[in-house]
């Protein structure tokens, strides 16, 4: 009851922050104010909000769940690689997007692509691919909200009501607060994340009687010792993960967020502090996930450990149904919730509920980004603003926010979450494969619209292919692989337990490399279609 109350109070606070707290009296009403906060965000909000926008439910729940099953490798796979790649992409690409936005008024990446390559409908193709890859995140967030409220209320708040409530809160502050409201909510949520990690480590450590004993006993057991090294993961798999953070700057909501800073210098603190924020959130999440393997005095965690042991002992002898059932039982996504439930006082468990809500509500930026993209890349591009005016453009953006959230809510009520969990995995690879578009647009004079189209169509086709393979070929037991494409004696494409692999790499690697190659080769073949000199001079002065 206390937890439910705290979470509901948190939702009310977030709504207040988003709508009223930081509404600028000086700001001129209009599209630029609504969609990119008038390009006037200060350095602290820019840092905290950009970081919070990049953090999803996965950062707290998924990271500890992954670490629970896979061990310390989770940090190297997802945190330290992002700590390098994301700030570097902000330094090299984000700053240039900011400058171009300030100079030419761009509000979306597609606007910039259309101008840079002097194209119209190819920009629409890029918009469609970006939008399709972004929608699953919004549906997942609605589902996460429903599940979290259902869990923290002990089942008193049904899934449909929890999802509806979260959708309503997010829609309301995005509708009224636009980018400024969304940015302040994200900044507040990031502070909550940062506080939560340290507090949770201290409380769980006290509950478990310190972590030294837990680590030593894990090292002494053959079942858990591998979780403290990376012996179960291949170096190629590890290397593949460094491609995933390339997706960050290619996500429209991150690229659009780069346009909101008042000054270029605001990027400096964001770039330097980004790795430290990653450390502050991910190290506790991963460490607690690993340590949970010794928290078997918490019944729910003991049940997960037993299910995993049964899965490992049964191996290929288990039926597919039994494997699927045991996988669900052993899944660790709620392991940090269970740890805090087991060791923390009620007040901390309630705060955790709020932090989890913060994580699952990270869809606000994606909703706003899709609304910005729709109004700028479709409504304005096809003459809507010219005919109906700027006020109608903002009204259209707001209507789109309501419509999109309502559709996401209805879909969330009717479809299983596993579909969208998978879809978000594809989306990361898809956006990483779209990153060559940004690099080519900003750094290569010779790139052409046909090169951009080739990269985009390839990305869409590759994502669809991976999705089909992963949904039609059942996952084999851990360690085994189902050959899908064999050339000579070499299995080029295989279906492993963790997903599809290409020559030992995750699909994101060939997807990104081929996308970059297509950009180079097709641009070279269509060099005659390069934009006019005046256009090139905007991007490559001097």
């Amino acid at each position: 009851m206390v937890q439910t109350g705290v979470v509901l109070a948190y939702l009310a606070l977030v709504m207040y922050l988003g709508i009223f707290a930081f509404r600028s009296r000086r700001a001129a009403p209009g599209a630029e104010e609504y969609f990119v906060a008038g390009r006037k965000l200060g350095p602290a909000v820019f840092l905290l909000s950009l970081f919070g926008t990049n953090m999803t439910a996965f950062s707290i729940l998924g990271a500890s769940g992954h670490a629970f099953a896979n061990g310390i490798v989770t940090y190297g796979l997802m945190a330290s690689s992002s700590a390098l790649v994301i700030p570097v992409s902000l330094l090299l690409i984000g700053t240039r997007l900011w400058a171009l936005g300030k100079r030419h008024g761009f509000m979306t990446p597609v606007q910039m692509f259309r101008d840079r390559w002097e194209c119209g409908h190819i920009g629409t193709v890029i918009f469609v691919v970006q939008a399709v890859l972004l929608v699953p995140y919004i549906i997942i967030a609605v589902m996460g909200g429903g599940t979290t409220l259902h869990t923290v209320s002990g089942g008193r708040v049904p899934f449909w009501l929890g999802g509806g409530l979260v959708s309503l809160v997010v829609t309301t502050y995005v509708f009224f607060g636009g980018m400024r409201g969304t940015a302040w909510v994200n900044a507040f949520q990031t502070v909550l994340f940062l506080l939560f990690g340290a507090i949770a480590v201290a409380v769980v450590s006290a509950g478990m009687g310190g972590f030294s004993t837990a680590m030593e006993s894990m090292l002494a057991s053959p079942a858990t010792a591998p979780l403290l090294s990376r012996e179960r993961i291949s170096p190629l798999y590890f290397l593949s993960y460094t491609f995933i953070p390339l997706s960050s700057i290619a996500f429209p909501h991150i690229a659009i967020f780069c346009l909101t800073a008042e000054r270029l210098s605001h990027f400096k603190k964001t770039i330097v502090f980004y790795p430290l924020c990653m450390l502050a959130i991910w190290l506790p999440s991963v460490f607690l996930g690993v340590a949970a393997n010794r928290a078997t005095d918490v019944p729910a965690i003991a049940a997960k450990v037993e299910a995993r042991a049964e899965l490992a002992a049964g191996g290929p002898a288990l039926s597919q149904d039994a494997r699927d059932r045991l996988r669900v039982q052993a899944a660790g996504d709620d392991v940090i919730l269970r740890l805090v439930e087991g060791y923390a006082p009620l007040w901390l468990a309630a705060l955790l509920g709020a932090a989890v809500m913060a994580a699952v509500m990270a869809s606000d930026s994606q909703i706003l980004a899709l609304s910005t993209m729709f109004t700028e890349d479709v409504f304005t591009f096809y003459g809507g603003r010219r005919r109906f005016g700027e006020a109608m453009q903002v009204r259209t953006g707001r209507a789109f926010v309501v419509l999109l959230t309502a559709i996401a809510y209805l879909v969330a009520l009717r479809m299983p979450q596993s579909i969208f969990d998978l879809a978000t995995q594809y989306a990361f690879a898809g956006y990483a494969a779209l990153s060559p578009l940004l690099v080519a647009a900003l750094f290569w004079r010779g790139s052409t619209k046909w090169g951009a189209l080739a990269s985009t169509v390839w990305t869409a086709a590759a994502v669809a292919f991976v999705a089909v393979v992963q949904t039609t070929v059942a996952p084999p037991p851990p360690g085994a692989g189902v050959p899908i494409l064999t050339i000579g004696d070499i299995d080029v494409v295989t279906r492993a337990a963790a997903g599809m692999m290409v020559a030992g790499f995750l699909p994101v690697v060939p997807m990104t490399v081929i996308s970059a190659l297509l950009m180079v080769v097709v641009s070279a073949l269509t060099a005659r279609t390069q934009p006019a000199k005046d256009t090139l001079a905007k991007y490559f002065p001097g």
Partner: protein
Amino acid sequence: MTRVAIAVILAVLYGLHQDFWLWREARPLVFGVLPIGLFYHAAYTVATAVVLWVLVRIAWPSHLEEPVTRA
């Protein structure tokens, strides 16, 4: 600082992320609790922040900051 020097620094940092030399090691437990592989990547994250601080100081794209007039 030349573009080549920056590229080399970033390439070295990227290479250091692939710490195959600690692949199968769990010991020593740093501070008695952190397996060496996890400690290495935590330290790597801090080192990344330091390198980025240096890059921001000496390779900042200040030409982008020039006063702009909306075209």
